[in-house]
């Protein structure tokens, strides 16, 4: 048992380090009362609040509608092309939200090709006809839902897969009809995973800057940037970020509360699997359409547009895409490995020593996802430069050496920021995977003379593999797409695909953003597909 308390102490240390940037932001927010806050309250705060809430409600509905039915169909049913379709669905994960926003804005705005075509075809002029306004709250909800639903889909599907098929079989044998079976058995069992997926989507929604900024919607995140850039006021910025944090805490609380009193553990005999439900007749095309519409809108249309743009751009000759792709991939791989390893340690600490302080630190350590990347970066850079300065000072006093900064301005700083920002993703996935392994299994194995490490190796690793891989996959792709922290923290002469695409787009050269965006999507897709295969590898 001593090993476990070492584990919980160690994880407490790790969690504390991860929590420090967030704590620094809290400290900033509390340290001074800014009169800027009063100005915000009088003018724009109401808008921020209304739009942010609208966005969250919309994205919740959107990701559920797009992600859950498709996950259930692909995990529990069988229909033609199910295997192909089940990985097509996750492709939008490789799409950064801001890129999808650029694409749909480019296609649908008043000077875009579709409206131009309408005007020419029917000899109308602007204002004579009604057309959907993509630059609206609804437009942002659509774009964000289209790229974020794979979180819900992936976590829900791996939960549906891990579910005991026999449990469904039992329900069916007992005479529960097909439809009730979904609502009474499959959905409630998958709820922790679905909730974790929605929570991820919502956190990403709240920290999204690119989409809402481009669509001109004032949310807390744009407000944070505005306060920081327009007023140069760090403490008011931190105070706005605090509001986001509180919202996340409330969400966490609601999710926990709704799960109260329920235990979600898989039954024994995990090897046994039932055949999936065969769908027939008119239901087949319906299932296919239901699964294909999300990737069509979230992936194929945007990618096709980017390719068309890319063809017209001379950016291919301007930038070294091999170097950019290597930089992005190496960065994302390192971040995924680091984050998943830490998440495993944290999850085991909570599982084995579920004391309140361990839980709390893990919670704080994994809250960075809801903070905009810029805020995390500010926290990280403040922390690391402070460490650096004391290090440099110590060195010059002890040895008389005058050195530059050690950690800040290196890849280490960047990786640290990613660990802070994406820990939620990894912890969420792994802990929901762990929740399905009944603690009694551990106890029985220990009674049978297995050491804790044997329990982990022989039982946990095989059972946890899908959720660990899911975690690694999400972090990898998130880092490939990540922009603000990469932009602020990266070392000299180190550019990534996302930075290049952003620079082109923010310079209003959408066509020239096409090439980097395409390569970025490719770099994101390949690991998505590989990992998707190993997650679904249990059943063919």
């Amino acid at each position: 048992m001593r090993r476990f308390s070492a584990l919980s102490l160690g994880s407490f240390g790790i969690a504390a380090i991860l929590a420090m940037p967030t704590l620094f932001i809290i400290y900033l927010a509390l340290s001074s009362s800014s009169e800027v806050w009063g100005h915000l309250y009088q003018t724009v705060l109401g808008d921020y609040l209304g739009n942010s809430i609208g966005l969250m409600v919309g994205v919740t509905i959107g990701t559920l509608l797009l992600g859950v039915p498709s996950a259930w169909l692909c995990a529990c049913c069988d229909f033609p092309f199910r295997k192909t379709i089940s990985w097509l669905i996750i492709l939008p994960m490789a799409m950064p939200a801001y890129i999808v926003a650029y694409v749909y804005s480019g296609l649908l705005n008043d000077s875009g090709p579709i409206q131009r075509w309408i005007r020419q075809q029917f000899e109308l002029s602007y204002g004579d006809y009604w057309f959907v306004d993509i630059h609206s709250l609804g437009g942002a909800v659509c774009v964000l839902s289209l790229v974020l639903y794979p979180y819900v889909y992936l976590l829900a599907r791996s939960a549906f897969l891990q579910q005991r098929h026999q449990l469904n079989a039992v329900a069916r044998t007992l005479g529960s009809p097909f439809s009730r079976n979904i609502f009474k058995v499959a959905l409630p069992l998958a709820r922790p995973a679905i909730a974790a997926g929605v929570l991820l989507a919502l956190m990403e929604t709240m920290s999204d800057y690119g989409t809402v900024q481009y669509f001109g919607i004032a949310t807390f995140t744009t407000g944070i940037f505005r306060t920081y850039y327009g007023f140069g006021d760090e403490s008011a910025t931190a105070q706005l970020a605090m509001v986001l944090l509180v919202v996340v805490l409330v969400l966490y609380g609601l999710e926990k509360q709704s799960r109260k009193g329920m235990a979600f553990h898989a039954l024994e005999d995990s090897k046994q699997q039932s055949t999936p439900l065969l769908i027939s007749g008119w239901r087949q095309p319906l299932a296919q359409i239901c699964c294909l519409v999300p990737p069509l809108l979230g992936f194929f249309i945007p990618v096709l547009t980017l390719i068309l743009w890319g063809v017209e751009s001379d950016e291919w000759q301007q930038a070294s895409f091999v170097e950019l792709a290597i930089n992005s991939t190496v960065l994302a791989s390192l971040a995924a490995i680091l984050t998943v390893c830490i998440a495993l340690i944290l999850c085991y600490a909570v599982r084995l020593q579920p004391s309140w302080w361990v839980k709390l630190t893990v919670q704080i350590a994994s809250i960075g996802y809801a903070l905009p990347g810029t805020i995390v970066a500010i926290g990280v850079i403040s922390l690391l430069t402070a460490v650096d300065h004391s290090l440099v000072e110590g060195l010059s006093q002890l040895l008389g050496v005058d050195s530059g900064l050690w950690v800040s301005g290196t890849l280490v700083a960047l990786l640290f920021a990613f660990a802070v920002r994406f820990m939620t993703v990894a912890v969420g996935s792994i802990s929901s995977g762990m929740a399905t392994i009944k603690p009694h299994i551990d106890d029985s194995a220990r009674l049978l003379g297995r050491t804790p490490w044997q329990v982990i190796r022989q039982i946990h690793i095989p059972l946890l593999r899908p959720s660990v891989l899911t975690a690694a996959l999400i972090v990898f792709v998130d880092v490939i797409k990540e922009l603000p922290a990469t932009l602020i923290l990266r070392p000299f002469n180190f550019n990534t695909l996302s930075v290049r695409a952003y620079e082109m787009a923010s310079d209003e050269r959408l066509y020239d953003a096409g090439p980097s965006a395409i390569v970025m999507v490719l770099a994101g897709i390949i690991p998505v597909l590989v990992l998707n295969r190993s997650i679904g590898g249990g059943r063919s």
Partner: protein
Amino acid sequence: MKTKFASMLSLCLASLIASSAFAEQVNVYSSRKEALIKPLLDRFSEQTGIQVNLITGKDDALISRLRKEGKKSPADVLVTADVGRLYRAKAQQLLQPHGSDIVTQSVPAKYRDEDGQWLGLTMRARPIFYVKGKVDPAQLSSYENLADPKWQGQICIRSSSNIYNQSLIASMLEAEGDQATMAFAKGLVANMARSPVGGDTDQLRAATAGVCNIAIANTYYFGRLANSDKPADQQVVNALAVFWPNQDDRGTHVNISGIGITQSARNKTEAVKLIEFMLTAESQAWYSQVNNEYPVVNDAAPSATLQSWGQFKADAVNLSKLGERNQQAVRLMDKAGWK
């Protein structure tokens, strides 16, 4: 695979360490995009043998990084795409005087800091664009005139979050005072064809598409469309014309992209060399050709595209004032309901 990965990693690390090993180098923090500065920096390295290390990013993020890194920051120079941020960097005591006579002689006083802490590298104007045939240019006169109810539903301009709009309002605050500027901002908001959306280029395109008849945008965006061979871009250029506002009083609002040497600079000699290189006729011509920006150096000529829009009188306000009044401008726009 493993060895490949390891060698890649060591390459990354090596490049990090290497950046401090070269004798002659200069470290640049730039909010100018890589595509709009790297080619010039490469040419500088070729000519002088001085290695240039570059990080690009958003202005305020870079300034905040500089501030946090403090005395030990590896950065030698800060390059920004507007004057407001240079002012901010100076106000936070992140810059130091360049002490170069070449700079003082070649850059007009209004485009550089009086203490020599920053200077403009290129200049851009923010004129009015109107749809030919739909707007009689005789009806246009000044920015203030755009608040007149006769333009109701006809004006496209981007969000107030944008620094170029903030600087425009700051220049007006400096010239006309608080009340007049507020009246202008409210009138302009009332005349907007739609809630602000997109960037400057989007406003120009929207005007061509019939959303509005008047758009406000920076010159280089229009220049880029003018030099593009895409039919859609040519359509925009043919439909619109440039109008230089406020020619009878203070002049058209202008802004600069600029540079300053950081307080922490360890390679000041090289940094000064870089600045002087950026002011050579060759570099100034490059910016004019590649990004359609006006030279700041007295004797350099703008590109043919820029010359085709004619001469104009630029606002003579010292650009430091735009930085000073930035916060006031942001608040005013919030109050006026400018999204």
